[in-house]
Structures are given as C-alpha cells and as structure tokens.
C-alpha cells in the first residue's frame, strides 16, 4: 500500500561528468564536493525537502558506489520516510533483458513503475549538477495555474552565452512556441535549466511513444535518441501541447567544467553573492562527518575564505575554500584555491588558482598553479588540478591547465 503523492521528483544523477575528468574518475558527477561541506546533489535534494517534495527517485548509473553510500537512507535531507523518501534507482535486469539507461527519457521510462506506485499528479525532473536554491512548489503552482502539460524552468542568460544552452522561445504569456538546442543564432536568451514539471499522465504517454519510436528507428538502422530536450519536449511542441517557461531569478550555476567548478566555489567568497548558505530558512543539508571544530593555529593568516570543520590550519589562506579535515601546515600558502576533504598541504608548499582533490598530499616545495597575471599568453592560463589521492612531491610543480591524476 502506497499513499498517493501529489508530486514525485526524479533526479537524473547518472552523469559521468567527463569534463570534470580527474575529479570524476571514481565518483559520479553529483557526488563531486562543493562549497566546503557539500556535494552537488545536496542542492536538488535539499530543494526537494524544503519544497515539501518527500518522494525522490535518484537515477544512478556511472560509478554509483560513493553516491549510493552518500545518499544512504536519505536521513540527512529528512528523506528517510515510511511513505516515499529517497530511493536510488540503478539500471536493472527484467524478463525483457538488462539494459543501461539509454538517455534521460529512457532512464525515467525504465522506472515508470516506481512513479506509478505513488499515483502522482505531477512529476518534477531534475539534474544533479547545478548549484541553486529553488522552491519547486512554486513552479508546480505555476504549472497548475497555466493548466500546462509541461513547465520548463528557464534563466535569462547573456546573449553571447545563449548558444551554449537549450533556448526557449516564448509568447507574451510565457507559453513556449519553440525550443532550439544550442542555437548558432539565438532568438531568445531564455536558457533551459534542465528542470521540468510534467503532468504525469502526459509524460507517461510521451515516454512510451518515444521509447517505441526510438526502438523502431533503431531496428531500421536509423538515428534514434531517448532524451528529454531532444525528444520529449520536441514531440510535445509538435503536438501543440501546453508548454510554459517558468522564469527563475537568482543564483544558478552549471558546474560542468573544472573552471566552472572553481568559479562556483570562488563565487561563495563574494560578499554580493545571491546564494546564502547561512540562511536558516532554506538550509542546504549534507551528510556530516564526525570531526571536531576547525583549529586555527598561531601562525595562521586567514582572509576572505571558507573553511569547514575538522580542518587544522597554521598556514596562510586567502580567497580559498577548504573542506572538512584539511591540513595546511605552518609556512604553506593557499590562494584562490579549492582544497577537498582530507587533503594535506605541507609546510613550504604553494597552491594558487588550483583544485586539490580529496586526501591528496602536496609536499613542501611543490608549486601548484599560477596567478593569471604571471602568464604571458592569457590562453595558456587555467586552473591547475590535482585529482583525488594524489601525492605531489616537493620538487614538482603543476602548471596552469595541467591536470594530475597520478602521483608525481
């Protein structure tokens, strides 16, 4: 017996995050650390719980161990429920055979039975790799008020960047008239945030149609796909369904690349940032580690930084984000960098404009990254990255844009 739910959320967390490379070798992208004590998936999960959505399916596929362990029974997000709660949904084998998720729409298609158990009116489809605070219940209300079949949340982006996104073209009532994926000449600046509200019966119909069409095409040897933007939204527009754009105002950051992950962390140090992690009315929850408060030593010099519990800092820190259990020894320098959980920066090491992965060790004398002012050709500059569990010995340096995945 399952109680009926008005809204069920489906969180697409299968992404490999191949552009995050060294940081996603062994973890799925939604499990990538962010902001001192969070992982990317904390944002959609906390948004769900704060929006009153208590039933969430998390679709995993790539390197799920860390992510599964992290989500656990969902208790940190208050999603350990007798009715509903968070459920990790990996691909599975059925009588028809086993299959990996073949696209975002197919992932939901394969889990329609999970959704049907709760007999929802609406299904919210979310990604696991964006940083933002959003009240999904307001978006659902907007969807209901418009008698929509699908509502897509959009954000106004600069025209110059619009060709990187899926762009919505709307009439004066926010009704979507056209959708173009990464247009060369964008006709609008409303970018899809990859957040959808569907009326479940409609979504169910289109998921089944898309599945059958794509499979038929595959048998004929034609090109096929099973994706939300490309297939479901396009088909619904073709059939003149009611699609609406829900305009979001606030901080929204895609962290698809190492540079944008670094930027998103640096954003937290800006005094004018519209993303307040200290706001108690919309907390971002995360699974805590059982470590004592951070200790700042006698030789420390700390300015404009964010530091998480369990860290021991006796060096110099400026414009940086330090995660839980990081050690920065006396005489070590960390500027404009992100140091992930458990990493050790030894005395005499310099880390600038860099990302240091979890549990890595930077020996004294090593130099990671460089200030953009010291690089002649600006195209040569970028963030230096040391992956997880990597030791950089004292006589080595890691140059801008260089990515280190093994001990050097």
């Amino acid at each position, binding site marked *: 017996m399952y109680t009926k739910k008005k809204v069920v959320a489906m969180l697409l967390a299968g992404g490999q995050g191949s552009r995050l490379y060294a940081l996603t070798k062994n973890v799925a992208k939604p499990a990538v650390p962010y*902001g*001192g*004590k969070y992982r990317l998936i904390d944002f959609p999960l906390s948004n769900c719980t704060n929006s009153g959505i208590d039933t969430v399916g998390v679709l995993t596929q790539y390197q799920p161990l860390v992510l599964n362990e992290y989500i656990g029974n969902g*208790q*940190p997000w208050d999603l350990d429920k007798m009715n509903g709660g968070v459920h990790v949904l990996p691909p599975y084998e059925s009588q028809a055979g086993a299959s990996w998720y073949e696209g975002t729409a197919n992932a939901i298609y394969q889990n329609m039975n999970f959704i049907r158990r709760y007999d929802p009116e609406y299904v919210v489809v979310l990604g696991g790799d964006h940083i933002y605070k959003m009240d999904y219940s307001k978006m659902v209300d907007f969807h209901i008020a418009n008698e929509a079949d699908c509502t897509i949340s959009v954000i106004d982006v600069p025209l110059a960047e619009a060709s990187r996104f899926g762009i919505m073209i709307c009439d004066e009532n926010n009704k979507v008239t056209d959708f173009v994926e990464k247009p060369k000449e964008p006709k609008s600046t409303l970018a899809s945030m990859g957040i959808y509200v569907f009326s479940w019966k409609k979504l169910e119909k289109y998921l089944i149609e898309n599945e059958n069409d794509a499979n038929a095409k595959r048998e004929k040897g034609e090109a096929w796909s099973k994706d939300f933007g490309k297939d479901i939204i396009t088909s619904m527009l073709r059939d003149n369904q009611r699609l609406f754009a829900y305009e979001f105002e606030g901080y929204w950051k895609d962290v698809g690349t190492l540079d944008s992950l670094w930027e998103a962390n640096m954003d937290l140090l800006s005094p004018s940032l519209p993303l307040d*992690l*200290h706001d108690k009315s919309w*907390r*971002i*929850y*995360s699974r*805590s580690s*059982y*470590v*004592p*408060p*951070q*200790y*700042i*030593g*006698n030789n*420390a*010099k*700390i*300015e*404009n*930084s*964010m*530091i*998480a*519990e369990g860290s021991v800092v006796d060096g110099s*820190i400026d414009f940086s*984000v*330090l*995660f839980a259990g990081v050690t920065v020894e006396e005489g070590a320098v960390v500027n404009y960098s992100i140091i992930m959980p458990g990493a050790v920066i030894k005395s005499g090491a310099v880390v600038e404009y860099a990302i240091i992965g979890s549990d890595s060790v930077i020996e004294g004398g090593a130099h990671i990254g460089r200030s953009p002012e010291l690089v002649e050709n600006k195209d040569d500059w970028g963030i230096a990255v040391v992956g997880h569990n990597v030791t950089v010995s004292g006589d080595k340096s890691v140059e801008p844009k260089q990515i280190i995945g093994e001990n050097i």
Partner: protein
Amino acid sequence: MSVNYNVLGLIFASMHDTSVSEITEHRTMGSIPFGGRYRLIDFPLSNFVNSGISSVGVITKANYGSLLDHLGSGRDWDLARKNGGLCLLPPYSQNGGMYKGRLDALANIWSYVEHSKAQYVVLANCDVVTTIDLNPALIQHKKSEADITLIYGRGYYDDEKNKNTAILQLDEENIVNDVLLNPRMKGEFNQWLEMLIISKDLLKQIVFESVSKSTFSFTREVLQNKECGYKIMGYEHKEMFMRIDSKESYFAANKRLLDSDARKALFKPKMPVYTKVGDNAPVKYGLESSIKNSLIADGCIIEGTVENSILFRGVKVGKGTVIKDSVIMQGAVIGNNCKLSEIITDKNVEIRSDKILNGSETYPVYIKKNGRI
C-alpha cells in the same frame, strides 16, 4: 566495533549540576555546551557507542528540556535501535519529589535495568570529559573477579579548587583500599573518573538494600563503607581527563582544547565524538579577519579578530571587534569594534557594537543565555 549486548550503559545527566550553577540554571550537566560543537553528554555517550555498548539509559533530574532536544531519538549517536539503543529515564522518586542520590535514582529506574539482557552495567557521569575504550576495563573486571571496578586517572587535585572528587588509595594489585571524598590535600592523586563497572545482580542487591535503609549515596554507602566487604578494583585510564566542577574549570577545560595534545587525546579518528548534527555552512572569514590559536565551529561568520578562543556554532563577529581568551557559545551575535577578553557567553547572547568586556582567567565574566548587552 561489533555490538556488545552483554553490557548496559547508564549515564547520570544531572550529577553535580550545582557545581556549575550559573551554566546549569536552564539545563543539566549533560547538556552544557562544550568544545565548540558538543554537549558534555556526548563524551560518555560516544565512549559507550565506540566501546560497542549500544544500550544506554540516560537518567535525568530537573531542567532536562535541552537534553531531550539534544538527544532526540539518539540517531546521531547511532542509538536509535530496535535492540537496546537510547532510553531517556525521566526523574521520579518513590519517596515523592526528586530522587536524592545515585542509589535512589537507580531504584526508581530499576525496571529499565531489569528488562535489559545485559549481565554488566557501566555507570558514568557527564562532569568528567575524556575519551576511553571501555573494553580493556571490562576485560580486567571479569578477569579479576572484582565486585566493582572503578575507572580512575592520575591528575592534580587541589581541595581549595576542586569539588566532587573521590581520591582512590590503591595497593600494588590495584585493589582499592580507601576512597576519600574531597580530602584536604593537594598534589597528584588517583582520581575516580565517575565511571564504574558492576554486575547487574550485585547492583540490584545494593540498590534494594539501600532503599530499605533509606541510604542514597553510592560513594558513601558502598565505596567508602568497608563493612560491605566488596572487592573493589581500580582500572587506570592513562589518557587526559578534565573535570568540570566550577565555572573556572569549565573555562579552562574549553581552552585546553587549543592544545594539540589535548585534542589528540579527546578526538581520536577511530573513536569519533558524536553529537547532534547542526547543518551549518562552513565558517566564513571576511576580508579583514585575523584568527590565531582558536577553535571555531561551523556556521560562524567572522570579520574581526579572534585569539585564544573557542567559538561555537553560528557565532557572528563584526568588523573591528577583538575577542581574546574567551568561550563564545552558539548563536552569539557580536557587533563591530567590541573588545572582549576572558568572557564566557552562554547561548544566543547579543553584544552590540563598541562594547568593552574584560574578565580574568581565574574569574571569567559570564553572560547568561539570551543576554543582551
């Protein structure tokens, strides 16, 4: 650590409340905030859990609202269990009114102990802060066939400063010959750490005999009474311990955590100290912040100078403010250009801009909960 169903843990959350009467005005000894993010009860609770003891009763007395809030279902200590787990035992006395001593308290909650399948009981208080694996003490207790094993540590005692201290006199075989309560002495002594091991059967016998005689004090009636003829053994805990028996010792114990050896002794990676999860953001340090030798919990926003201090969760320190040698509990909001030294602020204190407050090491200024200055 696998689960040890044969041992029951009992914690006296209110024992010696009156020795820190200002801080316990609205709470029990067990719910006194300590070390930036903990409450005193986290230490005995975590010691039990890390020793595999997952059935724990917490005996409360008065003012236990904050304790209930802190402990909840016991989930944060992994004690929300079907078998055993955490059980809160509210005050009740068969004689009417509040219970009078450890024995009276035990008599009143005895049905809880009786229902436990455990053969041994470990009793602990909240006023001694230490991290201990109880398994070696349990092994010694069984091997030595002792009736009672008292866990003790060697440390400095001064009768003019210390309260609630039982000094043990031991022979070469660690048998306790005498227990002196607050004797007029100074120096290094073997001090009972308010933890003991006893079999459930013997404890039952002692508790019900004492009820029939209207005697209530475990220390006086059992430990100091040689006529009982019990074999009482000592077990030495060789690591650091800190007794909270006054506002000054509370202040000093917090500040002792600025010493890395003290932190290593208390916060062992394999024996984490569990506490209620706060869901606070990491600490944010502003453009002109300067921090030296301080312990700082999550959720703080610091724009001023902090030295030799302990800041609990969610403390805000304004620009130009200098805090030295102080203990600032959860949720304090301190304005700009204040100068504070040697003070203890209880929870949610507000200090408006431009204030100057100075205490002294031996007499810290204490500002009570929700105080406004």
